[in-house]
């Protein structure tokens, strides 16, 4: 035992089965494991493994040319105890051994109710026709930004020659109501970041830079970029703001409401340091609050500072974590001048967050969205801002339901990562990502070929957009705007009264 070290009592998370009759000792598993699980034993001419290190990312399994590997959860367990579960015991032991705040990556994995799974969609039968989305036009084009309550139009006698007198706020157009959510270069690899940018560009939607800045050579994707101005203000310069489609003020994140972020110094490599404009090897600390925003009127101050900095040409989005008073806060945000409000729910992802925060703070996005949309409508200001929602969207049906609840578009983060290769091993915070996504280790990062990742992302957007059209067609709707806030097309199954009430939907059969 080294001095200061504590003998570990932890159990392995995974078990590795190697089918010897298939193993050709090619050592691909060894080379592909960033956690150093596999190794070759020359003496016995066989592959060996250290299961304590395995995170279950399945990279070795996928890469093994003979499919000789099976990685599965470690079956050993403590005496059954509904209160003291294995997870609780292991977490506690880990803290007893380290004395630290437990970190984790990705979104909340706790069994909170997923309301999407308790909401069902409608379809046309007899009384009106469903529409065939394969042959008839189906429109998903969406505009994000502030809309006026009415238009003043000047007619010049000729109806073909009309002029709009109303001064319009800037809006940004997307071809599908799916936007890539904030993932910073730093949290994710350059390769992953670039893939998102390219995919957004190719499909006509937006990606979000997160708070790590936008590398100079990617500024050509600015017209597809939502650039963040977050508490750390990394890489925020006038050009960064002006090249973007949308500027987002990040107040909070669904996975860690109220918490700042630390990009540890070892991840601040040279290219990251250039982009964030901080010295190499320095911790990139994102404070918990924006230090120029301690209250709502300060938010309006920053919103308008950004509008000033960009000559009132870009919509400004404000992103908050979905918390108890989301509806009221959202109202304040709209009144403070936000053109888009982004809500990030309880199941939103993260590159690194204290586990205790991730698993216990915030509210589900379904509830936040429903109450925000409702509140803004009650106050008559729903058109003043678009609503972007985030936090665990897993399939196109979730998106359709969100739009019917009142969202303008959704942010997908984890889904995009999974499309690129992520297997939700939840080790993002370690800086080791065997899939080359959430890492700055150049050896690992190059595993993600941006071209391939882009194709996968574009395919995902395409597939989901097609499915959305299918569902719209079934409801007899051929333009996404007719679904927005159309809660008539939703019914709850297995929900309690208060839940239906917050969601503003009827129960099935009602």
């Amino acid at each position, binding site marked *: 035992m080294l001095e200061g070290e504590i003998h570990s009592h932890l159990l392995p998370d995974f078990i590795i089965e190697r089918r010897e*009759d298939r193993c*050709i000792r090619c050592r*691909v598993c060894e080379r*592909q494991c960033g956690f150093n699980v596999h190794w070759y034993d020359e003496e016995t001419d066989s592959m060996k493994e250290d299961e304590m290190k395995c995170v279950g990312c399945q990279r070795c399994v996928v890469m093994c*040319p003979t499919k000789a590997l099976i990685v599965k959860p470690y079956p050993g367990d403590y005496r059954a105890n509904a209160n003291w579960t294995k997870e609780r015991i292991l977490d506690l032991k880990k803290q007893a051994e380290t004395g630290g705040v437990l970190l984790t990556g990705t979104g909340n994995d706790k069994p909170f109710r997923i309301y999407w799974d308790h909401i069902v969609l409608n379809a046309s039968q007899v009384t009106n026709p469903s529409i065939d989305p394969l042959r008839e036009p189906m429109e998903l084009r969406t505009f994000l930004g502030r809309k006026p309550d009415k238009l003043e139009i000047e007619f010049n006698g000729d109806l073909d020659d009309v002029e709009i007198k109303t001064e319009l706020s800037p809006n940004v157009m997307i071809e599908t109501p799916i936007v890539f959510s904030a993932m910073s270069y730093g949290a994710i690899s350059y390769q992953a970041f670039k893939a998102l940018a390219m995919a957004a560009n190719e499909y006509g939607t937006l990606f979000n830079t997160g708070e790590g800045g936008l590398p100079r050579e990617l500024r050509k994707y600015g017209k597809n970029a939502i650039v963040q101005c977050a508490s750390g203000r990394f890489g925020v310069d006038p050009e960064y703001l002006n090249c973007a489609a949308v500027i987002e003020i990040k107040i909070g994140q669904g996975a860690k409401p109220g918490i700042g972020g630390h990009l540890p110094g070892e991840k601040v490599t040279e290219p990251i340091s250039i982009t964030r404009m901080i010295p190499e090897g320095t911790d990139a600390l994102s404070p918990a609050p924006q230090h120029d925003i301690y209250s709502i009127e300060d938010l309006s101050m920053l919103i308008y500072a950004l509008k000033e900095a960009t000559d009132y040409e870009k919509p400004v989005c404000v992103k908050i974590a979905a918390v108890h008073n989301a509806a009221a806060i959202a109202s304040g945000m709209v009144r403070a001048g936000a053109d888009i409000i982004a809500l990030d729910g309880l199941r939103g992802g993260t590159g690194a967050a204290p586990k205790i925060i991730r698993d216990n703070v915030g509210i589900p996005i379904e509830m936040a969205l429903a109450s925000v949309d409702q509140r803004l409508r009650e106050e008559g200001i729903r058109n003043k801002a678009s609503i972007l929602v985030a936090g665990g969207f897993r399939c196109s049906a979730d998106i359709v339901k969100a739009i019917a609840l009142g969202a303008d578009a959704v942010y997908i983060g984890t889904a995009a990562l999974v499309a690129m290769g992520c297997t939700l091993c939840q080790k993002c915070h370690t800086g080791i990502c065997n899939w080359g996504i959430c890492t700055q280790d150049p050896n690992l990062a190059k*595993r993600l*070929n941006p071209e*391939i990742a882009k194709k996968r992302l574009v395919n995902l957007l395409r597939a989901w957009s097609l499915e959305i059209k299918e569902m719209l067609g079934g409801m007899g709707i051929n333009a996404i705007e007719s679904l927005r806030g159309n809660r008539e097309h939703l019914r709850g199954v297995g929900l309690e009264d208060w839940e239906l009430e917050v969601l503003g939907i009827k129960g099935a059969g009602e």
Partner: protein
Amino acid sequence: MMRRVVAKPEVCVGCHLCEIWCVVAHSTSKDVIKAFLYERDGNHPRITVEENLPETLAINCRHCDEPECMASCISGAIYKDEEGRVLHNPEKCVKCYSCVMSCPYGAIVISENGDIFKCDLCKDLEYPYCVRFCPNDALELVEDSEKGVLG
């Protein structure tokens, strides 16, 4: 028609699967398990993945217009076929390693037994296996319509 396998080092993941599949491509069975577990007959990958982490680079025969290896081959074992592939005839090879001396890419490989191997662009297969099975598209088969220097 010039064909060759081009490497994209920035997305090379260093898995060495190209080497594995190269062996499979030149095995009798074309089956990865059999090729390694039952057919070990001195077959050797003809592509070499250099490693100097984090950098990795797959080096393979470039099928040069005017191959130095061919110029220096004393036995006539190395030749260029009609399709521009630079091929090696092991029957004729005397293992003098003049080709090793002159290949500027180090793309002529010497097996454990001292035999010479080099890329034949999987001439008996539909497509080079190294390219086909590269998990990250780090290898690409390019075809220049442009003929050699001499047209």
